[in-house]
């Protein structure tokens, strides 16, 4: 099936794959060819694209996943708020950003700061594992 990961600024990844794993507010899910048309909101965390023996792992701070099509012509589109390859994340830099996000949340305890903190936490989590 055809998989594309798109951020507002550019297309991040495009290719053929067998399975896409991502996480919605209701939990982790996987999509394979022929899944019934599916539309999910994504929470901060990883999106894994599996193709044969190879896996591509991306971090997304949020976004949507849509999949539909026939068995022969099936597609998955990840509409990410931003996306980066997991290998590109620098763990120590990610921890610094987490500390910064914590301080910010302590200063002004609003929804936006809380959301940023959750993104930073998920990012560190991914970088360390």
């Amino acid at each position, binding site marked *: 099936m055809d998989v*594309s990961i*798109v*951020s*507002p*600024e*550019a*297309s991040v990844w495009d290719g053929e794959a067998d399975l896409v794993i991502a996480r*919605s*507010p*209701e939990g982790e*899910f996987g999509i394979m060819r022929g899944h*019934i*048309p*599916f*539309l*999910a*909101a994504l929470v901060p965390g990883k999106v894994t694209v599996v193709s044969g023996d190879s896996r591509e792992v991306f971090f997304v701070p*949020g*976004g*949507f996943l*849509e999949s*539909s099509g026939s068995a022969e012509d099936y597609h998955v*589109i990840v*509409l990410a*708020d*931003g996306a980066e390859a997991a290998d590109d994340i620098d763990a120590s830099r990610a921890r610094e950003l987490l500390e910064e996000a914590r301080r910010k949340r302590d200063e002004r305890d609003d929804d*936006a700061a809380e959301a940023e903190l959750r993104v930073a936490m998920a990012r560190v989590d991914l970088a360390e594992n």
Partner: protein
Amino acid sequence: MAEQLRVVKRRIGSVQSTQKITRAMELISSSRIIKAQQRVDAARPYAETMRRLLVSVAQNAGNLEHPLLAEREDVSTVGHIVIGSDRGLAGAYNSNVLRTTERDIAEHGKEARLFLTGKKAVSYFRFRGYDTSDSWTGISDRPSIDDARTVAQTAADAFSEGEVDQVRLTYTKFESAMRQSVVVNQVLPLPREELDGDQDEDEGRRAGYEFEPAPEEILNYLLPRYLESTVYQALLEASASEHAARRRAMKAATDNAEELLEDLTREYNQARQAEITTEIMEVVGGAEALSGASSGGHETN
């Protein structure tokens, strides 16, 4: 005479150096149009998919009640997001956007609250006595999605908190390198027509999605992102339009300088010729006077 020659020569020099600058700016703008256009193209897949998702979610949501969709019966304050540029020398680019906004404000006859991008927009409205506290500069050259988010969120917050009852967006749409036009769209509350989609989408998308979480909840995530994407597209198109307008203005300036140089060169040549003629006259006159004097002397001798 020699004085006039010097003056013309100096003017030629100054026009030439101005022309060098305008030609350089024209070339820079040309290359920036291309880059800006590439960014518009790169952002299109996201924007288009976003719109398609919004349509399918809206069609599947049982009740379409969301604060960002709710028309207010009593509109007292209208928010205007205005996209201008930081730098001038772009012909009528800024004045077109700013005048259109002013006309739009006047037509609505409501209290206006401004969300401005670009130094030119800020100084224009500040001079006219508007509150310009919601303004962003330094982004028009190369807008990023983060810039768009900040602008969109500020406007959405003002709308949610009831400070404004409607938000409109004024920017310059990039139709082609030769053609750009100012457009004004209502962005909040999001017009219902945008949720309807066209016939094709209708048929294809009713197929029945499984939603996670429920469509009403997905709408909560989707609507703010949609607004950000709309503002981002507008910023990118405006940026491409700005470079196109500047290129045109600088090309006109360069051509103008060329014409001016031709006139000045002609003037210079005439002045130079006149000076040479005068000099010859003087030499000839002097020689005649001398030969007249010497032959006269000879005769007397």
